[in-house]
């Protein structure tokens, strides 16, 4: 396992200014999207529950910045961040969260199944670990078809307990598939600490299958991106698969309804991560310090993102629900209404 220590204060490469700003913007977009989503939940305007990605933005953004639209990702129950980072628009996302017809999945998927085919996001998944096969299969297709796209499989530390991971890592390693397993280790699976459910070492598990494995500070978007760029390029050349463990933290509860969480983690711990290691604060300070953006520019950017998000929420709230007749559409590709006679 190679541990990626972020050089504490890397020097900015001017020619990358646009990329730095894009990564910052995308992190803020994720955070802002979720502030709105949380408001929708708290004011009972959103159906069901949702799992917040806030705090983990550098993971999705640092990795997706290294990908193109033809590269694929698979996402998790905690999927807003991956979706935004891979290029999704606020309007279609909010419409989906509210079950509206203009949602990415015509309101049929909701937060836990949001997918964005156009940008290569194969979808969130409500089965923990459920997308590990899908990601690996996408990589198998790339190899069989001689295509050079790479697939990134996002999953949590808790998901490493699913045997499926070891089955697909074995095949990925045997067949040298262009897939990167990105384990978002936020220290918890639901209400349980990782140490209580994971024996041994996560990176050693990947290595035992002959897969090169890395550990990186998931709150440092530059470090994440630097590693991702390198591994994506290598995977494109057929040197994959790879495994990355990203140390990160979720700010909210397991889902929006998980409010009283003292019994499994302390307020102090939460505060420490939010104040000392926040990926957005850190990146912002660096951008200013390196002279890539002035405070005022950043404030303007943030304000614009907030406005975009608010507009998108308003749009989504006003948008129509799917017509009732859609209920039995999309069961099969070739049957318009699956439950009508003759189907």
């Amino acid at each position, binding site marked *: 396992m190679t541990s990626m220590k972020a050089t504490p204060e890397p020097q900015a490469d001017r020619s990358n200014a646009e990329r730095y700003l894009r990564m910052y913007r995308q992190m803020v977009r994720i955070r802002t999207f979720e502030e709105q989503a949380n408001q929708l939940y708290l004011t009972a305007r959103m*159906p*069901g*529950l949702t799992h917040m990605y806030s705090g983990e933005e550098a993971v999705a953004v640092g990795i997706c910045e290294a990908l193109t639209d033809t590269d694929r990702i698979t996402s998790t129950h905690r999927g807003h961040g991956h979706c935004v980072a891979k290029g999704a628009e606020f309007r279609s996302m909010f419409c989906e969260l509210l*079950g*509206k017809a203009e949602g990415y*999945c*015509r*309101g*049929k*998927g*909701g937060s*836990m*199944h949001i997918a964005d085919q156009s940008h290569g996001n194969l979808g969130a*998944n*409500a*089965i*923990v*670990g*459920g997308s590990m096969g899908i990601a690996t299969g996408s990589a198998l297709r790339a190899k069989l078809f001689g295509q050079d796209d790479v697939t990134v499989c996002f999953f949590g530390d*808790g*998901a490493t*307990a*699913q*045997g499926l991971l070891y089955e697909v890592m074995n095949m990925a390693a045997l067949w040298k598939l262009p897939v990167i397993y990105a384990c978002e280790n936020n220290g918890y*699976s*639901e*209400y*349980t600490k990782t140490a*209580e*459910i*994971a024996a041994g070492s996560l990176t050693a598990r990947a290595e035992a299958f002959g897969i090169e494995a890395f550990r990186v500070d998931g709150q440092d978007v530059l470090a994440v991106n630097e590693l991702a760029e390198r591994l994506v390029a290598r995977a494109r050349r057929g040197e994959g698969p790879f495994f990355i463990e990203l140390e990160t933290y979720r700010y909210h509860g397991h889902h929006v309804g998980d409010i009283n969480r003292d*019994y*499994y983690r302390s307020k102090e711990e939460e505060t420490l991560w939010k104040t000392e290691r926040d990926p957005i604060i850190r990146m912002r300070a660096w951008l200013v310090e390196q002279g890539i953006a002035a405070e005022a520019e950043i404030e303007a950017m943030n304000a614009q993102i907030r406005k975009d998000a608010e507009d998108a929420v308003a749009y989504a709230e006003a948008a129509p*629900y*799917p017509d*009732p007749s*859609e*209920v*039995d559409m999309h*069961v099969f590709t070739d049957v318009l209404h*699956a*439950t009508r006679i003759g189907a």
Partner: protein
Amino acid sequence: MREITLSQAVNEALAEEMRRDPSVFILGEDVAEAGTPFKVLSGLVQEFGKDRVIDTPISEPGFMGLAVGAAMTGARPVVDIMFGDFLFLIMDQLCNQAAKTHYMSGGKLNVPLVVRTNLGATRRSAAQHSQSLQALVAHIPGLKVALPSSAYEAKGLLKTAIRDNNPVVIFEDKLMYQDKAPVPEEEYLIPFGQANIKREGRDITLIATSSMVQVAMKAAEALASSGISAEVIDPRTIVPLDEATLLASVKKTSRAIVIDEGHQSYGVTAEIASRLNEKAFYYLDAPVLRMGAMDVPVPFSPVLEDLTVPTPDRVAEAARRLCAGEMIHAA
């Protein structure tokens, strides 16, 4: 009689059985301190300790397998499968191993375990957290299947399940955890294979399982005001199935609707309707109707999701048409 929630009823059943029998233990994700996401098990770890209320990693096939092995060697595990949809992950251990071990060993090995899980849509949880998969396990010989319809049944059936020497799958309705019902303070068990006549009636029999019992009861009330007297029966277990009670009712009323929240096609309603047709055919004045969930994955959008499950209105409407002799299908 005191009223408690279904969640409390389950909690009491487990606590009582764990006190009675030290070989009973609980295995599942976030069952200990968290008491499950539904908080159904709150407090049990405090009484019984972490050795008997065991938090597992997210390894459904794995801990289901552990339960089979523990059961084969003398323990009585109660496996918590957080959402019924995750049954798909444990099918091999449940159906190829647990269900068949007693038979394959010629009666020498027993697998006394309980899988506690849930069913039910309209919680806005979308396609992978809303399924009602009781038909799948009911199809596999060697498994018993219980479908409690209230706190009362939840407690009595779970206690029976824990004492049963066979693998039992029990489905709670996740939307009913906060619903209260009268539950005696004194200990009681509900035997498997005994249907419960929830309401007597003359004109039509509504056979409903789990979440659909309330739906049927509401439909029966509505029907009463239109002068139709509906009998409502809750089979309580679908394996074993109390055919006798169902047949007696249908022979009396000559009409029946079977209602279950699983998908309609190849589902529970088909089996029950078929048995009625086979064994009460000459008593029937009309075809036995079935109302299951619509044959679509459960959609997230509330406007769509609500269309997929039987409702009191739709059941009453079907019953009226059936009683009016309007169900003669054209070719």
